[in-house]
């Protein structure tokens, strides 16, 4: 059975020093969003899939932004990876489905991406569950102890 | 009618209608021509007319001496237009497929960008010839409605084909439909205008060669 890679489609990769790359423009946009974050605290987000990136632009952008200290792997209906780039406040969020295929990719300019945060409502629910579990343990302890 | 509906009509009933009118018209013209006949030549033939007739069909493809100097635009434009029209018609792959669906056989095509360039040159040539027809007083005097109609129905398929290829105008489906409809218009008009020359040029050349050849004269 032939694999997809055996269909002889030749992909032309633009050389590193080629003129038409979207990355410089993208970096300017990230800069503008970051400045906005500093000035007013407003978050920004760029949908990487909506841009006409050339093959290799992804890698070029990642190389230019560098790697930061945070690399979080989430398990939410498929994997999601949240990494802070070498530029503080610029995060790279990759959403994948249950089969590991990337379904969305964002650059988030924020103090911490929304998806990492815990929602206050969930905290209240969590507290209720914990209290219920503690109560259970108490009861078991009583029946065991005596 | 929406784009898809128009395209389906053009590829289906429209084509049936156009081909029917085209063949009907051709037959009427040819049968009449044949029945009108020629007066019997009672003189003794010096040579059989067929050979000289056929030779003239080919030899008249070379214009008479001095033609280039006398009418350069018509000379060059005529060749370029006819060559361009025939090559874009016969060697563009989608056209070859259309003809294959009718004839049952096809042939290799040319690269699309060549057809594209040739198409543009052909369109420009046609426009130049029309402009000359307007600006030259003698030509304008001689021009009749039939000439303008013939020019228009020849120009429209070239223009609409070029526009569709380059995704100009409205959406592609509609442009393709318009292109096919323009070709159908051309088919319907051919038998009733001077565009019949695409068939009769062979008859006319043969006839000239034949009657002269019968007398032993080479033309």
């Amino acid at each position, binding site marked *: 059975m032939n694999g997809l890679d055996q*269909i*002889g489609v030749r992909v032309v990769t633009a050389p590193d020093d080629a003129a038409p790359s979207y990355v410089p423009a993208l970096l300017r946009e990230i800069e503008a969003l970051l400045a906005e974050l500093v000035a007013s605290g407003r*978050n920004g*987000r760029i*949908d990487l899939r*909506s841009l006409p990136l050339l093959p290799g632009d992804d890698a070029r952008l990642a190389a230019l932004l560098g790697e930061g200290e945070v690399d979080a792997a*989430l398990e*939410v*209906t*498929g994997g*999601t990876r949240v990494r802070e780039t070498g530029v503080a406040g610029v995060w790279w969020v990759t*959403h994948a*489905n249950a*089969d590991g*295929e990337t*379904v*969305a990719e*964002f650059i988030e300019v924020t103090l911490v991406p*929304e*998806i990492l945060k815990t*929602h206050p*409502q*969930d905290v209240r629910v969590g507290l209720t569950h914990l209290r219920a579990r503690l109560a259970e343990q108490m009861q078991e302890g009583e029946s065991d102890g005596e | 009618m*929406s784009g898809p*509906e128009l*395209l*389906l009509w053009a*590829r*289906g*009933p429209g*084509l*049936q*209608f156009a*081909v*029917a*009118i*085209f*063949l*009907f*018209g051709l*037959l*009427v*013209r040819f*049968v*009449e021509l*044949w*029945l*009108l006949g020629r007066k019997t030549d009672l003189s003794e033939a010096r040579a059989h007319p067929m050979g000289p007739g056929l030779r003239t069909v080919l030899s008249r493809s070379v214009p008479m001496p001095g033609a280039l100097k006398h009418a350069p635009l018509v000379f060059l434009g005529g060749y370029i237009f006819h060559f361009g029209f025939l090559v874009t018609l016969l060697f563009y*792959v*989608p*056209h070859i*497929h*259309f003809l*294959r669906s009718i004839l049952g056989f096809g042939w290799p095509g040319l*690269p*699309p*960008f060549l057809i594209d360039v040739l198409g543009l040159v052909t369109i420009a040539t046609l426009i130049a010839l029309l402009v000359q027809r307007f600006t030259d007083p003698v030509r304008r005097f001689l021009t009749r409605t039939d000439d303008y109609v013939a020019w228009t129905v020849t120009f429209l398929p070239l223009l609409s084909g070029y526009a569709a290829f380059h995704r100009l105008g409205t959406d*592609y*489906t509609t442009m*393709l439909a318009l292109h096919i409809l323009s070709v159908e218009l051309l088919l319907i008009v051919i038998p009733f205008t001077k565009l019949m020359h695409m068939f009769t040029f062979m008859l006319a050349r043969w006839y000239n060669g034949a009657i002269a050849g019968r007398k032993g004269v080479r033309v």
Partner: protein
Amino acid sequence: MANNETVGETLASRGVSRRSFLKFCATMTSLLALPPGMAEVMAETLARTRRQSVIWLSFQECTGCTESLTRSHSPTLESLLFDAISLDYHHTLQAAAGDAAERARTTAMKDNAGKYLVIVDGSIPLKDGGVYSTIAGHSNLDMLKETAAGAAAIIAVGTCATYGGLPHAKPNPTGAVAVSDIIKDKPIVNVPGCPPIATVMTGVVAHFLTLGTLPELDSLGRPKVFFGDTIHDRCYRRPFYDQGKFAKTFDDEGARNGWCLYELGCKGPTTHNACATVKWNGGVSFPIESGHPCLGCSEPNFWDAGSFYQALSTKTLPLSAHAGAALAIGATVGAAVGLASRAKKKAAVGKHARVTADELEKGGGA
């Protein structure tokens, strides 16, 4: 149908985390080409709204559209959509049957009058009073008109519901028509395809749920965000088309090298859909990438548009009968015209005046 619950409550009760839902909304905003910041807005809005009542009407269809929507791998993001809506009526997916099912529909219509969403797949047969497709003794026509009356909007899913589809193909024995041929007073979104791409169907519903409006539509009522481009415009094999490199059979050198499939009948140039970008099965592939020419399944009357395996430029109807008749009639008329012209010529010759040389000399002069 607990559609008094908010979406958020339903998600919580089904163990779908808030983060999963946020991820779903982020993916949807990307797919719908909405501003990326909309994801949180979408999530917050959806979580707080009552689950949207949706009535799915299946008429003269093959159930392929439902299959496309539900046959994605689970759990996927698309399946989250089913948590955000209250699917009050769906033949294949509902547990109830018979009268109970019909009661569910009418109750939902009453409880959510003016606000429920109607999704229709399958065409509506009109011939012979609509007897060729009935549910619970009611013709599809009646059920559509009754259900559409109180709907907020109608989404016609699949080529059958949008254009009539396969039942509508020649000779259309059941008199099948599209939803838009019957309902004229409600907003209708056409999502054609045989079947439509699952993500496209979800995206349209998601747009309505979160923004309360229908996406921008083209002249055939299709969302421009998914149906704005043709397959040909976004096909990865386009460079081969431009260079004139075509596969001639399904297994030749050209086919194996992934050349353009125009000669094998690809209808990509005239077909509007998202197959070349969004692709199928979560972005795995689409027909052309798998080596098969596009059928044009999201365009009207694609079943009658000539062979799937003949190029787009070929004729769709036979010519021999018309040609034969034309030649015969032409020959007859030509003969009549020819003979008439000959007679005219002979008569003219007969009328020629005879002149002698003497007469000429006398009359003439120098």
